[in-house]
C-alpha cells in the first residue's frame, strides 16, 4: 500500500501530528491539501481522493480531525481507507474519544502508536489488543526497563496471549441486530435490511476452545432438521479466530476467543420483515402562520416484547416557534438546534398505537432559503428479541484444565439507519 506519510490535521488544516514514513515526499506537500479541499467544497465537488500533481491525498474525517494519507503510488484505495479507520479505532481504544483535544494531550502515545502500526509505509501491528500490551499510557510515570514484546506479537495464535488467569470463568455473548429501513414518502418500503453481529466478552483462563451452535438454515439442512425454525444468514463474516475451513465443511463455528471484548461474527439478512415501528405522519404547513404535525406510531411486533427508549425525531421548519404538543403517551419536546420534535417513549409494548400532535407558529416573513426535506428518524431498542429469529442453541467451552465456565447470552434488536421520508 505504501503510504508515504500520514498526517492528523485539525479542521483548519493545521498539522497536529505528522509522520513521514518513506521520506519520498516533501512534508510541506500537506500545505496544498486544505486549499484544494476548500475549493472543492465550494464547487460541491468533494471527493475522498484529492490529487495535487503526482501526490494523492486520501483523507477521512473523524470528529474535528482530518486523517490524511499521502501516497505517490497507484495504491489500493480501499486498503488505505481501511487502514485510516483502523488507526481511528486504535486511537479511540486508547483515548476513549478521538478528537483534537485527546490528540494534543496524548501526542507522545500517538507517536509511539504511529511508530508501531506502520513502518516504511506498510501496516505492521494494528491490533489494538496487542498494542495495548506493550504501549501503555503511563504518561508521566517513569518506566525503568522496557517491556518485552508480548508473545502475541510473534505468537501462532496472534489474538490471544498465553497464561491468562481468572478466578471466575465466564463468557458473555450479545446477539445484536440492527434494522436499517428506508420508507418513501408514499409509504412504500424502499430498503429494509438486518445487520446482525455477535459480540463476546470473554473472561476465561488459559487457551479455551469454544464452539457455538446457531439455528443456521444450512446447518439444519445438512443434519436433516429442516422442520425446525432456522435462519438463512447472508454475508457471514468472522473474526479471524474462527476456523473458516471447519465452517466451510460442516458449518461448525469453533474458535479460541480473544481475551476481553471482541466481535465474533457479523451477518446480514436481506429478507423483508414488517417494519418494527411504523410511522404515519401528516405535516401540514400553512405559510406565514403555522405548522401542524400529526404523527401516528405503531409497533408491529409481538405483544410479549417491548421496545425501550423509543425516540422519534420529526423535522420541523427551522424558523418555527412557540411549540404546543399533545401526546397519548411519552414526552414530546422541541429541539431547536436540530430543528425537530423529539418524541420519547420510555416503553412501547408490541401491537400498540400512539399519537402525537404538535403545533408550531411560523413567522409572517418567510425566509428565502429552501429547506431540505428531512426524513423522520426513529431510534429504539427491543431486548430479548431478534428480528431474524436467530438463536444460540449452545455455546460449549472446552478448556484443557477442565474448569467450569458459565456462558451468558443476551439478545437485542435495535434501530440502525431507520428513516421514513416525509412530504
Amino acid at each position, binding site marked *: *500500500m505504501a503510504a508515504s506519510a500520514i498526517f492528523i490535521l485539525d479542521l483548519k488544516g493545521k498539522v497536529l501530528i505528522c509522520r513521514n514514513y518513506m521520506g519520498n515526499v516533501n512534508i510541506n506537500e500537506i500545505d496544498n491539501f486544505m486549499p484544494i479541499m476548500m475549493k472543492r467544497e465550494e464547487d460541491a465537488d468533494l471527493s475522498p481522493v484529492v490529487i495535487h500533481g503526482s501526490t494523492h491525498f486520501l483523507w477521512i474525517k473523524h470528529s474535528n480531525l482530518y486523517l490524511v494519507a499521502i501516497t505517490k503510488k497507484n495504491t*489500493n484505495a*480501499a486498503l488505505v*481507507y481501511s487502514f485510516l479507520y483502523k488507526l481511528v479505532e486504535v486511537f479511540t481504544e486508547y483515548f476513549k474519544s478521538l478528537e483534537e483535544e485527546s490528540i494534543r494531550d496524548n501526542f*507522545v502515545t500517538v507517536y509511539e502508536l504511529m511508530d508501531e502500526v506502520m513502518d516504511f509505509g506498510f501496516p505492521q501491528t494494528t491490533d489494538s489488543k496487542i498494542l495495548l500490551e506493550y504501549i501503555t499510557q503511563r504518561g508521566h510515570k517513569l518506566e525503568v526497563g522496557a517491556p518485552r514484546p508480548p508473545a502475541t506479537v510473534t505468537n501462532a495464535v496472534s489474538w490471544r496471549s498465553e497464561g491468562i488467569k481468572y478466578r471466575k470463568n465466564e463468557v458473555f455473548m450479545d446477539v445484536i441486530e440492527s434494522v436499517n429501513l428506508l420508507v418513501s414518502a408514499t409509504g412504500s418500503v424502499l430498503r429494509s435490511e438486518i445487520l446482525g453481529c455477535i459480540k463476546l466478552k470473554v473472561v476465561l483462563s488459559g487457551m479455551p476452545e469454544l464452539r457455538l451452535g446457531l439455528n443456521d438454515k444450512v446447518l439444519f439442512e445438512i443434519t436433516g432438521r429442516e422442520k425446525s425454525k432456522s435462519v438463512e444468514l447472508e454475508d457471514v463474516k468472522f473474526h479471524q479466530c474462527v476456523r473458516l475451513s471447519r465452517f466451510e465443511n460442516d458449518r461448525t463455528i469453533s474458535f479460541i476467543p480473544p481475551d476481553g471484548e471482541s466481535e465474533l461474527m457479523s451477518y446480514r439478512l436481506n429478507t423483508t420483515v414488517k417494519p418494527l415501528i411504523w410511522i404515519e405522519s401528516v405535516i401540514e404547513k400553512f405559510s406565514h402562520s403555522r405548522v401542524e404535525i400529526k404523527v401516528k406510531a405503531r409497533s408491529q411486533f409481538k405483544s410479549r416484547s417491548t421496545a425501550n427508549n423509543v425516540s422519534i425525531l420529526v423535522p420541523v421548519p427551522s424558523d418555527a416557534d412557540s411549540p404546543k404538543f399533545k401526546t397519548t403517551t411519552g414526552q414530546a419536546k422541541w429541539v431547536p438546534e436540530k430543528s425537530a420534535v423529539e418524541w420519547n417513549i420510555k416503553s412501547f409494548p408490541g401491537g400498540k398505537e400512539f399519537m402525537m400532535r404538535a403545533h408550531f407558529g411560523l413567522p409572517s416573513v418567510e425566509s428565502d432559503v429552501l429547506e431540505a426535506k428531512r426524513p423522520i428518524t426513529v431510534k429504539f431498542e427491543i431486548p430479548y428479541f431478534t428480528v431474524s429469529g436467530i438463536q444460540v442453541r449452545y455455546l460449549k467451552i472446552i478448556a484443557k484444565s477442565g474448569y467450569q465456565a458459565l456462558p451468558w447470552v443476551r439478545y437485542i434488536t435495535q434501530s440502525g439507519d431507520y428513516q421514513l421520508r416525509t412530504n
Partner: protein
Amino acid sequence: MPYFGSEEMVKELKRALSNPNVQADRLRYKNYITKVIRYMTQGLDVSALFMDMVKASATVDIAQKKLVYLYMCTYASDKPDLALLAINTLRKDCADPNPMVRGLALRNMCNFRMPGMTEYIEQPIVAGLRDKASYVRRVAVLGCAKMHSLQPNTDIDGTIVNELYALLRDPDPVVVVNCLRALEEILKDEGGVVINKPIAHHLLNRMKDLDSWAQSEVLTFLLRYRPRSDDELFDILSLLDSFLQSAHAHVAVATLRLFLQLASAHPAVQADALLCTSAPLLATCGAASRELRFAGLCHVQQVMRSQPGLFGTHYKRFFCGYSEPTYIKFRKMEILVELVNDENVALVLEELRSYCTDVSPELAQAAIAAIGRIAQTYSEKCLDILTGLLALKQDHITSAVIQMFRDLVWFCPQSTAAVCQTVEACVDSPQDSEALLWLLGEHGDQISSAPYVMEGYIDGLKTELSSAVKMELLTASVKMFLCRPAETQDMLGRLLHYCIEEESDVCVRDRALLCYRLLQRGVEETRKVVTGPKSDPSMSVLTGRQEEPISQWASTFNTLGPLSGCDLCPQTAVISAADQPSSSAEKELLPESTDVTLSSPDDTEEEISLSLGPPLSHETFEKMWLDLEILQRQTMGFPRPRTALDTLQAALQLVKIQTLAFTPGATVPWKAYIYTRSTGTLILAELLQGDQHAPGIDESLVVSVKQQPVNQHAIRGFVSILKGVLQTLNVDSS
C-alpha cells in the same frame, strides 16, 4: 510556523536540559524532553537543541528513548554531523538483550535520512535479519529497503537480496510480507520481486496466517504469477475462493482482481467470480464509512462496464440516504441510470424525482440530468416528470430541465412534438437561456409563442452579460427568421443593429456581422449555411452502451484509478490491449487477410503502420467526431461484406482498426464507426451503406474519414488497408 518569541523558548529549554540538577531528576528531565517534542510537533524549529537531545538518549526509560529518537529522525538530515554522535548509543541498543529495544533502535537508525548512513546501519541490519526475535527481523527486513532508498543508484547488494528471498520462508507472517515489500522496493528497477512457482505456492499456502493488510498485498504480488497449466490455475483459484467473500472489502476486491487476471482466458470463471464478489461489493457500498462506501461504488461502476446486469436486482441499494455526502449521491445516481430496466424504471424514476427538489442545486441538476439520460430510452415517462418539475418554478430546476429537453430532442427526434408542447407552456425566461434559445431557433415552427419569447430576450439585451447567450440568440433569431419571417424581421433588425453598433464583445460582433452578411446573400444561401440537421439519429448508435470486455478495466481495478475517475496508468492498459491475442477462431477465418492487405495492388504508397493504442470512450469519440471536419469521403465501389458483424469486427481488429459501434445487420442505412492510430495521428471513420441522400450508389459502401492531426499520407494508407480487409471479407463470404 515560527512563533513569536520562539527563540527565547528554545534558549530556555536549552538551559534547562543542560542543567545538571534537572538531569539528575529523571522525571523533570523527561518532562522537558516531552516539551521539546511538543514544540516540534507544533512546527517550531527546535533543531538547536540537538546536542542536548543526543545526550538524553542514553537512558533506561524506553518512552524517553522513543521521544529522543523521534526528535533525531526529524532533524538528522539537517544536522548530519551531530547525528553521527547518536549512532554509538543506537548501535549499543541494537545489541540489547531486550528485543523491543533492539527493534526500536534498529528501526530508528534506519529512519535517519542522511547520506553516509549506510556504512553504519549495514552491519546491524544484517545481524537483525538473523535475530531470533521476529519483532527485530520485521524491522530489519524493512531496514534493507530503507537502506536502499538512501542510496538509490548504488548496485544492488546480491547477498541481501538472497537473504531476503530466503526469509520468505520465515515462520512469522509479517516477516514474510515485509520481505516481499522490501524486495519490491530494492528491485524496483528490475521489475520488482520475482514470483516464481515455488514462491507463489508458498505464499498461497500461507495466505490464511496473514492479517488482512498482508493478504491484500500478497494478492497484488500474485498478479505477476502466470500458472503453467489449467490444472494449476484451477487449484490456485479454488484455494483463493474463500477470500472472495472476505470480511475485509480490500481483500475481497484484491482477490477479485487476481481472479479476473488469472482467468482471463476463462470468461465463465470470471463471471462466476464477479457474481461471488457482488455480495461483498454491495456490502461495501453500504459500509459505515463513507470513504469505503465511495470506493465500493466506484468499483461497482467498473464491474458494470462489463456486466451491466449484475446489480440489476439490487437497485434499491443505490437509493441515496438523506445524510450521505454529495460525492456518494452523484455516484449512486450514475449507477441507478445504468441499472434501469423495464421492471424497475417506475420506481427508479420516482426515486430520482424526489432528488430533483433537493436543496443542493448541484444535486438537483444531477438528478434531472439522470432522468434526462433515462429519457433516451423511456422518453414518455421521463417527459412527464420533467414537465412536472417545470411547475415548481425554481430557476435552477427549470434551466436543467430545458437543457435536458435540448439533448432529448437532439437524440430522440420522436419526442420533439411533446417537448415543443411543454416548452410552449412554460416559457417565462429561465436562467440558462442558451438551451431554450437553441430549442426556439431549431423548432420555432412548432412553438407558436417562440417569436414573442425571443423578443423578450432581444429587448433585455442590454442587461444580458453572457456573450454565449448573445451569440446563441443571434443564431436562433436568424433560424427563426427563416421559418417565420414576418414575425421576426423587425426584431432581428434591432438585434443586429445593437450587436454590430453597440456591442463591445468582439465575438458577438463578429457573429452579428456574419449573420448580417449572410442575410445579404439571400435567404436560400443563409438557409444552406444556418440550418443543420435538427437531430442526429446516427448518434443513437453511440448512446447504446456496449458491454466492454473485462480486460478493458481489470488492469486498473482496485487502484486509485476508478476513484479519481481517470486511468492513472494508461500504459498498462495499452499493454493489456496489445497483449490480448485475438481468439484462434478469428485467425482461422482470415488466414490471408493481413497478407492481402499489405500487398493489395492499389497500395502504391509505402506501408503505414496502424496501432491500437488506448481505447477511446464513446463520449470522446462522439465529441471528436462532431468537432472534426471530414477530410476524405470515398465510395468503395462494393457493398459491405455479408459476413457476420463479429467477423467484420475481428477482421478489423486484426489489422489494428478498432470498432466503436455499428448498427445491427439488417438496418438501412447501415453504419459503423471505427478508429485507429497511426504514427502520431488518430483516424476516425464512418462506414455508411444505403444513404438515402445518395440513392444512386445505395449498394456501395461509403467511407468518411476524419483525422487529428491531419496527415494525408496516413489517411491514404488507412483507406487502402480498410479496403483490403473489406474486399477479402467479400471474397470469403461470396
